C-alpha cells in the first residue's frame, strides 16, 4: 500500500485494524483496509499488437457499451427515457449494469458533490479497463449552476479523465444518444484510451482528488 493518509479527525472505526473472535471461538486479526481493498496501482495496457485484431475488438467494445447505473446528479432523470420505448438505447448496444465491475461507461450525470466524488472515484477505479466517461451538462465542465457552491466540484477532468462532454442542463436523451455515437466513433478509431491516461497520470489525479476529499480514509487505489 502506498501512502495511506489517515486523517485522525475523519478516522472511521470500521476501518481500524482489530482482533475479533469468530463464531467458532477462534481469534483472528481483521485489517479492513488490507482485506477490502487491493493496493495495486493501475497499469497502462498496451493495445493488441495486431492492428486488425485490435480493430475488431474495438468494434466490439464500441457496440457493446454497458453503462454503470449510478445516477450521480440530476441528469440521471434522462437515463430512464433513454432506456425505455421512446428512445430505446438498447438497439444501439447500450445497456445498463448495476455494478461497476461489469460496466464500461460511466455517465457523470451532472454536478458532483464532494461526497459523491469519493464514490465516483471508487466506482471508476473498479471498472475494468478500457473504460469511458461521459460528462453531462455544464456542471461537469465548469461548475454550471453550482460554480459557487462549496460542496460541488467545478471541473471533472481534474479527477477522472473524460471522453465526451455533452452540453446542456440537462442534456436531452437525444444529446445523450449523440454522445454515445461520438463515443463509439472514438473507440472505433482507437482513441478510447482514457483509462490508460488515468493510469499514466495517476499521481496527478490522486493529488487533485486528495485536495478535494478531505477525509481520505481509504487506500490510494481501491479495486
Amino acid at each position, binding site marked *: 500500500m502506498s501512502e495511506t493518509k489517515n486523517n485522525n479527525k475523519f478516522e472511521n472505526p470500521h476501518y481500524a485494524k482489530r482482533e475479533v473472535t469468530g463464531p467458532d471461538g477462534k481469534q483472528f486479526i481483521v485489517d479492513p483496509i488490507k482485506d477490502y481493498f487491493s493496493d495495486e496501482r493501475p497499469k497502462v495496457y498496451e493495445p493488441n499488437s495486431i492492428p486488425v485484431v485490435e480493430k475488431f475488438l474495438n468494434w466490439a467494445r464500441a457496440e457493446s457499451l454497458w453503462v454503470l447505473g449510478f445516477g450521480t446528479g440530476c441528469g440521471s432523470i434522462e437515463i430512464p427515457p433513454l432506456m425505455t*420505448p421512446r428512445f430505446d438505447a438498447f438497439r444501439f448496444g447500450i445497456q445498463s449494469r448495476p455494478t461497476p465491475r461489469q460496466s464500461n461507461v460511466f455517465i457523470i450525470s451532472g454536478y458532483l458533490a464532494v461526497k459523491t466524488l469519493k464514490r465516483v472515484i471508487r466506482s471508476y477505479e473498479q471498472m475494468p479497463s478500457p473504460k469511458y466517461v461521459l460528462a453531462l451538462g455544464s456542471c461537469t465542465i465548469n461548475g454550471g449552476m453550482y*460554480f459557487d457552491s462549496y460542496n460541488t466540484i467545478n471541473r471533472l477532468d481534474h479527477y477522472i479523465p473524460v471522453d465526451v462532454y455533452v452540453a446542456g442542463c440537462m442534456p436531452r436523451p437525444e444529446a445523450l444518444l449523440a454522445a454515445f455515437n461520438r463515443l463509439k466513433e472514438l473507440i472505433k478509431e482507437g482513441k478510447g484510451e482514457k483509462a490508460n491516461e488515468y493510469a499514466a497520470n495517476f499521481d496527478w489525479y490522486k493529488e487533485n482528488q486528495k485536495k478535494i476529499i478531505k477525509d481520505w480514509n481509504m487506500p490510494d487505489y481501491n479495486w
Partner: protein
Amino acid sequence: MSLKDTLIPFKAWGNLVKKPVTLKDPMREGAPRYRGFHKNDVDTCIGCGSCEAICENEAIVMVPAEGIETKDGDSGLRPLVDYGRCCWCGLCVDVCTTGSLSLSNEHTWICEDPEELKYIPGIDKKPWDEKEEGWKKPVPNYHFYGQERVSMEEMEAEERGDSFIEFVKGYSKEQAQKEADRCVECGICVATCPAHMGIPEYIKAIRNDDIEEGMRVLYETNPLPEICGRICTHKCEDVCSVGHEGDPLSIRWLKRYIADQVPSDKYKEILDTQKIYKGDKKIALIGAGPASLSAAYYLSLLGHNCTIFEKLDKAGGMMRYGIPEYRLPYDQIDKDVKYIESLGTEIIYNTNVDAAKFMELKENYDVVYVGTGLHLGRSTAIPGSDHEHVFQSIDLLREITEGKEIMVPEKVVVIGGGNVAMDITRSIARLQKIKYGKVGVITTSLEKEEVMPADREEVVEAREEGSIINPGWGPKSIEIEDGKIKGLHVVRCLSIFDETGRFNPSLDEDDKNFFEADMIVESIGQGMDISYLPEELKEKIEFGPRGRINVDDYFQTSLDWLFAGGDMIQGPDVIHGIANGHKAAIGIDNFLNKK
C-alpha cells in the same frame, strides 16, 4: 392468489402484435419554443451587459468582438456564453434590452475538449445561427423592467401658453424611484455624456433613496445639476439601452430630482466642502457661462482662487440669456451659481473685457481662461435679411431676459430648426398670447421633421402651445413692401448634405410656399466674438478650421497660460461647456503645479 389475478397480467402480451412506439430516428427537433443554444443578432446588440447582469451562473462574459466597433450607444462588447456554466433558463433573452439575444431550438453539442464549449453567439458561426425556431422574448406584456417612462406632471398647454413660469413639475419621490427602477445599470450612456457623469450611480442613489450620495455623484462631474437637470440636451437618453424597446430613461429629470431635493444651505455639508484649502494661485475666467462656472468650481476645489469677469449683470451666460425662463427658472441658476460662489469664486459683473483689460488680466493672474461662448447670431443672408425687422433670436432672447420690451407683431416667422429656434418660437408665442390672446408663429427649417436638431418634446410642446412648425423649407427671400415685411418666400428643401457630407442644400425650386409675417427671426446658428483678444495675441494663437481656437486635450491653447472652453470650442450646449470647464480645471491645475 386467485386465478383471475394470475391470468389478467398476461394481457400485457397483447402488445406483441402492436407497433412499438420507439422513434426510428431519435434525433428530433426541439419544440418551437425550446430553449437551446444561444443566437445573437450582433448588429442589433449594443453590448449593454444586461444578460451578464441577470445570469445567475456568471455564464455570460462581455468580451470585445471582432468587427464590432465601439461607438456611442454600442459598447463594442458582445456576450460570450460559457456552456460550462449556462443553465438554459433564458433569463438573458427575457432581459435583453434590444431583443437581439435569442435561443435556437438546437439542443445537441458534443465535444471532447471542454474548452470548446464557449463562444460568442453571432460572431462565432454555429450551425444553428440560421434556425428560426427557439425561445424568444415572451410577448406581450412580459417585461423585466418598466417599458414606459414615468411621465412628469406638466401644465396643460392652455395654462402655460401665456406664462413664463416653469411648466414641467419635478418628479415626486415615488415617481423618481419608479423611473430610476427602470435603469438596467449598463453604463452605456456614460461615454456619450460629454461630462461622463456617473449616471448609473446617481440613478442607483435615487433607488436607494440616498439623495446625498446622488449629490456627491453629480458634483463629481457636474457643478450645475439644477441647470443640467432641466435643459441638458440629454445625449445620454438617445443611447439609453432601455430605449431600444421602450421609452428611454428620463435621465435628465432624475438628475433634476436629486438637485431639487437638496436645499442650497445643505450643499456644503453634503459635499463636504465646508473647509477647503486655498492656495495662492489666481485664475481669471472671462464670461460667467457654464464653462467658466464649471472650471471655477473645480479649480476652487483644487485650491485656486478664481475670478470671473462677466459683461452682463447676472451670471449664467447663455443659460440665462439664451434660454427662456419657462424652461429654466432664474432662481435655479442662482442656486447653482451661489454654491460655486460660496466656495470662494468671485464674479465681477458688468465688466467688459477688451484688449487692454485682457492684457491686464494676463499680468495679474497666473492663468486666463476664456469661455465667452457664441453670442453672435448668424444671418441667412437672403435678400431682405438686412431689414430692421429681421432679428437674431439670440438678441431677442437676451432682451426678453433683461426685461426689455421687444417687438411682438401678430405674425412672426422663425427660421431655424434647433432648440434655440424652438425657444424663440415659444417665447414669442407666449408674448403674443399675452398681447393678443392668440398665437401666430410659423417656424420653418431646412431640415425635415425627422432630422430636425431640436428635441422632440420641444417641437411637440411648441405645437401644443399653438405655434406652427413647418419644417423642410429653404428660405429664398423676404418680401418687403413699403419698407414693411410682408413675409418669407420658401422653396422645398430636398436634402441638406451632398454625397460627400458637406453642407450643400438641394432645393426644389418648383415647390414654393410663402409665409406671411410682420417680423422675421433668424435662428440658424451663432458665431463667436473674440474681438477682445489683443491683436498681438491673435497672431500667436493657433486657429483651427472654421475659425475655432485650437486647444489640446486639456483646453490649453498654444499660449500656455491661456485656456479656452465652452461653446466656442465644443458644442454648443451646456453639458459640453461643463465638461470643458472640468477638464480645463484639471489642465490648469497640472499646468500650475508644473510651473
